[in-house]
């Protein structure tokens, strides 16, 4: 039996709606809202799947037990928050019929690429060697063989959300006549994350910009070849990008309105990205010096209340879960020495620094200037930070604006410390990994442009200090 796409997709959507009602966030943005409930639903589903698998529930019922319990908890939260004031209609972001039509066409465009992906089974590259392999292993090796079976996985230490989402689809699918697992439908929810990525970017841009510039900037994503590749496969890089965009958008909305519900939205986005792929730890680390610098530049420094950090709880829970998981099964990162050289990233970095830094710099310039990619947004964003420093570094977007280039540099440093031959490593992953930051950079570019226009309209012009 082919899995019912409606059922596969309806699960996360339904959980996401309930979770958002629990947070008190209704449909205040007709475009981005779908991406928000998608990540919330996928997080809830990932948790439900993990609980189901941990409990040793039979394959087909694992998701039922886990998600039913979660649904009940969410409904309790919803009931408790029911009397809190809801967001009023004036806060709803404008969409407009013209932009609405663009979004519909963009979503159909994304779905078309996702359908084209079913031309090839999910057995190649990272989607075959890492993500779907672990999803299969979660179901057929659990619990006794799971740890030992990870020797067949290229990166056993990677986070679980992607495999858990694929495992959910496997649960709904019966075996193919001639193979133990289906080979196409398992991508479904991960591809849904890539469609949600477009909606998150379009919604975030339209919230801050008029329809035409918002559509043009969103088109950068729709036309980016790496995005097309992600739509056709089950790679986790689009999931990271989605989590980062929602985190950035949620943070900016929180700073604009001082509404803590958006801080929780940002927290969910960060948790989603962290549970998707390890690079997010690097971006989180990049956010720490960025936060310090942003605070130094801030016009008004308000005291930091412990309550302000509560929205980071989902992210901390993900980090704790992932750390315990890897410790429990003895999974180590190749960057920390679990590679054929036996050397850690830092040792290799010291050995290869002089040889690799010029090559990395050349690659960064080549891709950022390439008309084949949308990575030029990094250049435009950094240029904006230098040319309009007051708006960039003293405005509400200072933290993500600073974190993004630090994270981008961090990716390059990791390549310097890679045990793989540099050219091979760059050819197989550089554009895709750096793409993780492109959608967030597009949103930040839109936010900075919006701030410039708003400041000019307010008549505050003058020389830069």
């Amino acid at each position: 039996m082919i899995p019912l796409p409606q059922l596969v997709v309806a699960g996360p959507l339904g959980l996401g709606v309930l979770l958002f009602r629990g947070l008190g966030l209704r449909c205040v943005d007709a475009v981005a809202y779908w991406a928000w409930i998608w990540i919330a639903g996928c997080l809830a589903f990932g948790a439900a799947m993990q609980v189901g698998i941990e409990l040793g529930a039979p394959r087909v019922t694992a998701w039922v037990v886990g998600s039913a319990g979660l649904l009940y908890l969410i409904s309790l939260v919803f009931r408790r928050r029911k009397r809190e004031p809801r967001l009023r209609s004036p806060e709803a972001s404008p969409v407009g019929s013209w932009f609405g039509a663009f979004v519909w066409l963009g979503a159909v465009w994304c779905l078309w690429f996702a359908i084209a992906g079913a031309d090839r089974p999910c057995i190649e590259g990272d989607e075959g060697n890492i993500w779907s392999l672990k999803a299969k292993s979660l179901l057929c090796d659990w619990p006794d063989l799971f740890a030992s079976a990870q020797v067949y996985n290229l990166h056993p230490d990677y986070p679980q959300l992607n495999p858990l989402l694929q495992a959910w689809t496997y649960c709904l699918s019966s075996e193919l006549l001639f193979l133990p697992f289906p080979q196409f439908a398992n991508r479904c929810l991960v591809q849904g994350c890539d469609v949600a990525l477009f909606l998150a970017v379009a919604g975030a841009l339209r919230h801050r910009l008029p329809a035409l510039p918002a559509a043009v900037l969103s088109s950068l994503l729709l036309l980016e070849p790496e995005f097309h590749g992600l739509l056709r496969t089950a790679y986790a890089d689009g999931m990271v990008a989605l989590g980062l965009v929602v985190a950035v958008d949620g943070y900016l909305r929180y700073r604009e309105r001082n509404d803590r519900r958006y801080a929780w939205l940002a927290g969910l986005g960060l948790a989603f990205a962290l549970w998707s792929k390890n690079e997010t730890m690097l971006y989180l680390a990049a956010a720490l010096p960025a936060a310090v610098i942003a605070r130094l530049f801030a016009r008004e420094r308000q005291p930091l209340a412990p309550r302000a950090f509560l929205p980071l709880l989902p992210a901390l829970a993900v980090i704790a879960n992932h750390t315990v998981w890897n410790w429990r099964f003895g999974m180590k990162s190749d960057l920390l020495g679990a590679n054929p050289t036996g050397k850690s990233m830092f040792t290799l970095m010291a050995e290869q620094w002089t040889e690799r830094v010029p090559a990395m710099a050349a690659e960064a310039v080549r891709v950022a200037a390439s008309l084949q990619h949308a990575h030029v947004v990094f250049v435009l964003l950094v240029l904006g930070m230098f040319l309009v420093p007051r708006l960039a570094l003293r405005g509400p977007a200072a933290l993500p604006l600073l974190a993004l280039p630090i994270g981008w540099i961090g990716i390059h440093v990791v390549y310097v410390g890679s045990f793989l031959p540099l050219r091979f490593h760059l050819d197989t992953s550089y554009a895709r990994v750096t793409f993780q930051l492109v959608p967030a950079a597009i949103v930040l570019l839109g936010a900075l442009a919006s701030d410039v226009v708003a400041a000019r309209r307010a008549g505050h012009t003058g020389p830069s200090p």
Partner: protein
Amino acid sequence: MTDETPEPRSARVPLLAVPWLVGTGAVIAVWVAVLAVRTAGGLGETWAAAARATNDPEHARIERASGLSLELILSLQIEVPEDARLVLYSPYGGKEFELDAADPRGEPARQVRGLFERAKNLLYPHPRDVHFARDPDELLGKLAGRAPGTVFVLDGTLAPDPLAVGGRYTLLFENPPGKPRLRLWGWRGR
């Protein structure tokens, strides 16, 4: 949940703000236009892939992508136990140049690795233990320490001779004429 007053927008705009805004708009317009043209050039391939995805049966798409025919997959499922070892063997070298995509000498090794990855991920967990060998020594290494009957070799050798590296084998399956030459051997010991 609103707990603080909104932060005011920035007070002053530097003179370079407008040039940055105009320049950014121009660069974005150029990039979108070029990317649109490039994307349009690839739409035919995407359209064809979508058509195959919706029209072709699953086994045909799997065979086209993996190089493994339905008959061979069925044979592997029947003949190879779940706890056995499967070795993909193609003795055409090139492993020294494998990681340099621009070097054609590495192409045979890259093809073996590609077939190995596709077969491993397609068949998992039946069997789990899949390896590849690009010369007789590598194949001998995969046989070392294994009991007869627990190793199976998917042989991509073009010559018609029976496989004899490391002992005796039983031919279990051979791709029919018109398909890539692949034979499945069961290792019977030295």
